[in-house]
């Protein structure tokens, strides 16, 4: 057995904490299991603000069933959620509320900006009260264009998000791990 382990793990009786600081076979296996669990049982946060919320609702019901991706558990409280789908226009009055709710979510958390309004202000971009894009307030992982995006478009975005979640590593965060690694992996995949 010890022939297959790297040098520093030889003579090992039980794993120690320092073995989880670098990616190795134990962390990658744990990553596989955890990312499979995380990406296939995301709890979205019902943050439907405007018209896109109705398409989000439609995607939750029988015809476009979001439960097949494991995301049917829409919780209304941010403390129990992983994913905030910002569906609708964010304006200056709502922005502090959005930030507060985002801060109340526990890590790891992701944000999907659904619709043209959440991406960039949408048809109301030159309004005096409209925030041009929710990424001015919270970091966004997936942008879904459309006004409103069809439920199928929402699903494409959520599948994209599942691929991002799968890159999320078990190894504790440091520069280069976690979200940055996922972004880098995503770019490497495309490029």
């Amino acid at each position, binding site marked *: 057995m010890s022939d297959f382990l790297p040098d520093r793990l030889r003579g090992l009786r039980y794993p120690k904490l320092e073995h989880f600081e670098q990616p190795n076979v134990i962390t990658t296996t744990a990553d596989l299991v955890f990312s499979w669990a995380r990406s296939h049982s995301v709890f979205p946060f019902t943050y439907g603000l405007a018209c896109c919320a109705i398409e989000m609702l439609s995607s939750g019901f*029988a015809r476009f069933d979001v439960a097949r991706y494991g995301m049917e558990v829409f919780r209304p409280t941010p403390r129990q959620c992983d994913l905030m789908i910002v569906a609708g226009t964010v304006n200056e009055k709502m922005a502090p509320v959005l930030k507060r709710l985002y801060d109340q979510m526990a890590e790891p958390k992701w944000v999907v900006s659904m619709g043209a309004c959440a991406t960039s202000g949408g048809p109301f971009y030159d309004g*005096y009260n409209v925030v041009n894009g929710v990424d001015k307030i919270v970091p966004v992982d997936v942008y879904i264009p459309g006004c409103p995006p069809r439920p199928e478009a929402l699903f494409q975005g959520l599948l994209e998000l599942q691929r991002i979640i799968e890159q999320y590593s078990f190894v504790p965060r440091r520069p280069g791990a976690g979200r940055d690694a996922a972004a880098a992996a995503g770019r490497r995949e495309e490029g």
Partner: protein
Amino acid sequence: MYDHFATPEPDEAMKLALRRIEEARARGEGSNLDGIEFNEVVVNMGPQHPSTHGVLRLVVTLDGELVKDVIPVIGYLHRCKEKLAEKRTYYQYIPIVDRTEYLASINCEWAYVMAVEKLAGIEVPRRAEFIRVILGELMRIASHQVAVGTFTADLSPLGTAMAFYTFRDREKILDLMEEVTGARMMFNYFRFGGVRYDLPPGWVEKCRDLMKQMPKLIDEYESLVDDNAIFLQRTVGKGVITPQDVVDYGITGPNARASGVPLDLRRTRPYSVYPELDFEICVGEHGDVFDRYKVRMNEMRQSVRIIEQCLDMLPRGPVQNSSLRAPYVIAPPPGACYVGQENPRGEYGIYLESDGSRYPYRLKYRDPCFCNLQIFPKLLRGNKIADAVAISGSIDLVLGGIDR
């Protein structure tokens, strides 16, 4: 930039709620419970809340479970639509009107398009009028399906069963709309002087088939909840809107009709081809939550009746006024007019002022939910907080219209 661990300072609405508590204590009205002198708690429902149907914030003063006072705070979805009207041409503004009452956006477009047609004196061909009525009534059914579905979902998590049925059938209607207009929700289909596309071949038969199935489906929805003792206990006798309230607060739509007031703009101020159609105004008796739900169900049946008549009476002909051609720049003569239209939620009106240029001078929305929301403090006072959720669901609010 933002200290998210700090307790937020009370804003104007909370300060008002606290001021009212102080005044009530000074008057000697403390708590209703024996042995407890002062018991009011100010609770924030929203703006993000599963039961408020959008970003409505209710600052609720609770005494135990009884609601003492409610201060609705709106504006969390204010998208500057009235100012945008001054920056967009008349044609560019049609998609923005869509996004007011987004559950029945055809009806919103209809009011705007009628207002511009009235100002500019544009005639609409008969076939286009019938198509407008058919699509308007289809969206009325779809909107009521969402309203009733989310209302029962509010009452209890198991009530989402009704929502599953209504949303399933709403998808059938949206399929029909998509064949005609190309969109599922915000259609951008009406034009000044008609509609954009003609009905595709075979659409009339598909619509007829769906209308044959519809009454049975509506009966199915009612069979789910009508005999449920808990549903009846939670809805009968709660949240009564009196006819005097309807007059005082300008309440329109199913909320007014459930109180026994036969106010329907399709009859009192007929537009389009409604004078030629035969349908009843669905009126309730008591004005409570159950009557509002029942009025919506009956209105769905009347809409089916209207659609079937229109499909039979659909004439041939153009769907757009031939005098209007591309480039679509329209500059109505200076003037002002108000056009009200029977939206599924009430009277949706557009007050439009034009100064002769390509851009509207002033566009004001008369939104049904904005006017219906004013009665909230009066309705919810004295009820338990759970009833407050049921009552607010039965008023059928869409925040896109309230906040514009």
